[in-house]
């Protein structure tokens, strides 16, 4: 099976905010041949704790094993597979796209439709800030590709659980 066809999992991991912890987490993936599609990490409200969001692909057994192994790390406080519950995902992308005479208006129109912000302008390019979930980002980038993308920087997926509905 094409690995891209395997289900994506968004995993949130709370860890001690100490040196070397990130490498323990990523080493666990690489050591077992598990792929990381994206990874974000930053401090939480408690400066002693960091939150890591990892998007990984793999079947049920691989994902179960990943989560157990993550739990096993001494510095891991909590692991949640967000894919198993209602959650919101967002990723931010900065993209510099060619925008010359003919296409300038079209690029702006795409930006407008997808609620992107123009964060930098030159005579021949626009730099756009796009925020959205995985599908939206892909849709925008697909459209912009036709105009010539010069550079892309992505944050990787961030995710949070939805609050429980009463």
């Amino acid at each position: 099976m094409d690995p891209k066809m395997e289900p994506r999992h968004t995993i949130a991991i709370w860890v001690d905010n100490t040196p070397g912890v990130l490498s323990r987490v990523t080493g666990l993936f690489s050591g077992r041949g598990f792929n990381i599609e994206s990874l974000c990490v930053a401090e939480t409200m408690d400066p002693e704790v960091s939150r890591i969001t990892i998007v990984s692909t793999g079947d049920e057994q691989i994902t179960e094993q990943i989560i157990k192994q993550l739990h096993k790390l001494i510095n891991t406080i909590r692991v949640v597979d967000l894919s198993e519950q209602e959650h919101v995902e967002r990723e931010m992308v900065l993209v510099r796209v060619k925008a010359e005479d003919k296409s300038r208006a079209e690029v702006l129109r795409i930006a407008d439709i997808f609620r992107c912000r123009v964060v930098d302008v030159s005579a021949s390019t626009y730099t756009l800030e796009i925020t959205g979930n995985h599908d939206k980002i892909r849709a925008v980038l697909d459209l912009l590709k036709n105009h010539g993308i010069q550079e892309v920087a992505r944050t990787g997926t961030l995710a949070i659980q939805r609050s429980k509905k009463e």
Partner: protein
Amino acid sequence: MKLTGAQILMKCLEREGVKHIFGYPGGVVLDIYDELARTPSIRHILVRHEQAAVHAADGYARASSQVGVALVTSGPGATNTVTGIASAYLDSIPIVVITGQVPTNLIGNDAFQEVDIVGITRPCTKHNYLVKDVKDLARTLHEAFHIARSGRPGPVLVDLPKDVSQASTVPKFPETVKIKSYNPTYHANPRQVARALDMILHAQRPVLYTGGGIVLSDSSEGLFKFATSLQIPVTSTLMGLGGFPGDHPLWMGMLGMHGTYCANMAVSQADVLIAVGARFDDRVTGKLSEFAPHAKIVHIDIDPSSISKNVKVDIPIVGDCKDTLDQLNELLEDKPVRDWTEVRRPWLDTVNEWSTTHPLTYTWDDKVIKPQFVVEKLYELTKGEAYITTEVGQNQMWAAQFYKFRHPRRLMTSGGLGVMGYGLPAAMGVQMAKPDDIVIDIAGDGSIQMNIQELITVVDNDLPVKIAILNNSFLGMVRQWQQLFYDRRYSATPMTAPDFVKLAEAYGAVGLRATKPEEVEPVIREALSTRRPVIMDFKVEPEECVMPMVPAGKAMHEMLLA
């Protein structure tokens, strides 16, 4: 009162109850060694290679149930420990390895004898630390010992820069450990335990498959009670040998690649398989899709990541083996009494038939010593009470097959990593922990040469370790595979060894040799009657194979019998 890092380290070791450490000095641990010389409560055993220090600590830990400790210098001292650490990690042995490190201001500068040992050992330690501030030292060491011995045990490495061992502070020695992110589950979920018992009580053909977890959690009594109450036949992994008495009628022998016909057939035919403290290693399961094909599986393990890793489990139970077996035994007392001997008769009859028609055996030869015969004699003459360490390969498998371990913690072997060169240093560690007991390293002529330098450590410390070399002038196990699967093309497996008798004498040990079967017993008797270290060189049949054998990747019932 202010203490230096080195002094704090000694105090911490004393507080953890450490009596022996195995180590090798060097530049960045000079301050620690200086302090060690002034700490009479801790005896340091100077090894001749750092790898041996870790194996010795490993053997010591297994025999004594205490955390084993190794102390080495930075750079090559640290990298030499990696094999020992990886072995302890795969076998879940509680050890703490203290490595010196270059001063903090030089870390990352490619300084002399600098290596990122924390980075190198991250995937093969349970946890590791770099201590950058002397104020963290006491707490870190206490955590290290706690992590090493609790939950699923394992090696912990503490990297200690030279300036930290020299710096001073007023230490606070913590009484308790609080790591918010580390709380192993000891008490198994009672509902899961009850479900499991229910399934076991309804089984027609149950089998207990036990592993190193039984030994590590000291739960062989609970296992014995459970197995005998319900008359369930028992098999175990290499790591679990001794967890159930090897001379009991319910004992089927080891399972897996070189397991008994009986054990492998029983697992293949079982309707309920109760795995306790074992991890379904490939050497045990053979072809995974055909492992225990008719069985519902109950899996008891303290490490959740071991459960459903290789084999899908029907009733997972996360908990300490001892706690879980105690719960099972208690629940059992409330169940209606049944005559389990009667209930189990058809199944046990089948099992007994397998074991009588296909016992572990070998062809006797009047002229040539059979290696299995040597192990049988060792068993007989030590009455099964010796502490046995092994190297890796044929010697290890014959030790496992022909020495019937009756007690736990009597077999020390590098089961997971399979380290040639483990046996002699491990025997050294065992003998330190058990000075009055008989300790025998069952070795091959290949693997004994991997850490032979430790013979002088043994002599130096008056450790009466016995080394039984099954000398076949081959790397026997690799040769066996070439013999069976590579048309006897013996590529790089014929091997010359030194004259082991002379070698023993050169080191100041006793050297004995047997070349004929009738010489085996006198040689063993002589070795056992001396308080000195002895090498026994048994010239054995060169092309003997370990049988039965399940070829790699085959199903368990497809084993070769001879």
